């Protein structure tokens, strides 16, 4: 088990270097001169050169990449934004909780929807509920999150006035210098502002998960060991709990880890429509401004999240599946 984790960790390091190197060089291929943008429209050529030198942009890419890695590993710093001189670490740590709230809350919601429906559909294939669920799945997968978000915002938020349409509220105190329009800071306000985003993000994932849980459960129901359990006289409920679901959920755990990591990297559409200052919003903004340090910083963070989640999933998977743990 220990060796397994060490092997996984080494892999994670390799993955990290590869992803950051690619991202870092991508931004330098884009034909835009960050020094010019930083120096401003009225700056003369000498001014631009000075800025270039000050930011280290006159160095070759590999030197810049080395500096970047060094800063990251030694100082744990992602650098400073070109756009507003803000520390990128601060930008990330302000945006991350917003996206985390959105994604983890959404995950709980989509699992609460997908698990019972998926299992029930597997147990009663072709029943009315199963057929309805399958139509719902098709709609959920086909409907674009922006469309769903706009519909929800229009009807639930605007026409019926049940929820806020825009914005995010912290659970605790307002962040220093924030121009928040929150009426108060509490768990309630936090959740209240996230209801529509959660529903939006859940629709697509719930659809995927209903389908996946349904097919996994149906496959597992046909396994020989399930017949063995029935032949032993195990109650149907326990057959389902102890023999079917335990095995059917193994692939779901893997999927969940990957989906969470991807969603954390940017639930861009949902954040955009509901004006949530999350990672996706920040990423889009920084790309528009050619704010390279912020873009790279957000990418690095997303990469770390993906790697960490993959690692967690691998370890969790080994924990629940003895065939991996003991081989």
């Amino acid at each position, binding site marked *: 088990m220990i060796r397994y984790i060490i092997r996984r960790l080494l892999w994670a390091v390799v993955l990290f270097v590869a992803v950051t190197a690619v991202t870092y060089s991508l931004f330098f291929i884009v034909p835009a001169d960050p020094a010019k943008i930083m120096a401003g429209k009225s700056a003369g050529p000498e001014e631009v050169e000075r800025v270039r030198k000050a930011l280290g942009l006159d160095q070759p890419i590999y030197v810049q990449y080395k500096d970047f890695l060094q800063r990251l590993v030694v100082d744990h710093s992602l650098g400073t934004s070109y756009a507003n001189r803000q520390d990128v670490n601060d930008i990330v740590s302000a945006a991350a909780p917003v996206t985390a709230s959105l994604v983890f809350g959404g995950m709980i919601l989509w699992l609460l929807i997908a698990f019972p429906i998926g299992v029930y559909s597997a147990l009663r294939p072709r029943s009315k509920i199963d057929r309805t669920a399958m139509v719902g799945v098709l709609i959920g997968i086909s409907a674009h999150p922006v469309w769903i978000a706009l519909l929800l915002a229009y009807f639930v938020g605007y026409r019926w006035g049940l929820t806020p349409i825009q914005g995010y509220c912290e659970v605790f105190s307002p962040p220093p210098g924030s121009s928040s329009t929150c009426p108060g800071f509490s768990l309630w306000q936090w959740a209240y502002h996230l209801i529509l985003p959660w529903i939006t993000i859940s629709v697509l994932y719930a659809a995927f998960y209903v389908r996946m849980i349904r097919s996994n459960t149906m496959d597992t129901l046909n396994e020989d060991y399930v017949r063995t359990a029935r*032949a032993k006289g195990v109650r149907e409920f326990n057959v389902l709990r102890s023999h079917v679901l335990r095995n059917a959920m193994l692939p779901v755990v893997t999927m969940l880890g990957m989906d969470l990591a991807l969603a954390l990297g940017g639930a861009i559409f949902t954040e955009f429509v509901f004006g949530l200052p999350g990672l996706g919003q920040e990423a889009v903004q920084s790309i528009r401004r050619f704010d390279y340090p912020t873009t790279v910083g957000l990418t690095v963070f997303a990469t770390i999240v993906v790697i960490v989640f993959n690692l967690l999933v691998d370890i969790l998977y080994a924990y629940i599946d003895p*065939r991996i743990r003991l081989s």
Partner: protein
Amino acid sequence: MALLEVRDLKTHFHTDDGVVRAVDGVSFSVEKGKTLAIVGESGSGKSVTCLSVMGLNPKRGTDVSGEALFNGRDLLKLSGEELRNIRGAEMSMIFQDPMTSLNPVHTIGRQLREAVHVHEKVPKQQAQARALEMLKAVGIPRAETRTDDYPHQFSGGMRQRVMIAMALINNPDLLIADEPTTALDVTTQAQIISLMSRLQRDFGSAIILITHDLGVVAETADEVMVMYAGRAVEQAPYKGLFYQPHHPYTWGLMDSMPNLAGDETDLTPIPGTPPSLLRPPKGCKFNPRCRFVMDVCRETEPELKPVPGDANHLERCHLEEAVKQAEIERITTERLGAVS
């Protein structure tokens, strides 16, 4: 009175393409402590017969009719809960593929204890002691150290031993073994068969052995039922079946069995494939593959009736007894080296 008395069992599956008559009017009985072998090709209805008795067929789209009297109760009329109480306690079943028949995420100790706990409220230690005792009885080496191991840490033969231990842990009156050795290599097959015979003596369980291996039948069976396309085509005590085989399908099975005694006879496979159970042939279901087919075979299906002079030996064939005797003569001289 017989332990299990099955009368006119019919299991029909309703599919999108029509009704599949997987088992179509089968009757047999199993005496206490005896072994009945059910023989036939894949798709002949052997497994479905036993799954019907156990109540393990899928419920949806399945019609089961007839009678299956087990210790005086008709299994086919019992409620799900009553049947569940019998399954695993009074009758149990082991399956063809030991590699997939154990749950991969639970230790074998847990799976054995579960079999106890389902039917008896006993403390965990007591269930564990029973599990250990059974693992020793089926010959798992160093059983004490292996109850916390997972199925994938056992070989196929060892897993089948675990399955047998699990099936016998509640000391059932009847053990149904569905091709228990098919997925194992030959030496392991022999070990499992002799293990089952020994445990049958020790535990006094009756066995229904589903197989397509006549060699295994010869070693273990008291009674034999040969099935073809959902019906019994020949039923007899083991001696009668081997020394007076009366049905062309039985002959075919014997001709396709390797003969260790004499190597000058070739293996003769039965030509063709088993018929579709959706649209079985008219008349005798074996007629398209039968070497002795007559016009009457294509029109009317023969009744299951006793052979002349032996009321316990039933068969389903139109052929004249004289024709049969000539063929029986040939088969027994050519083939019996393999079974005696």
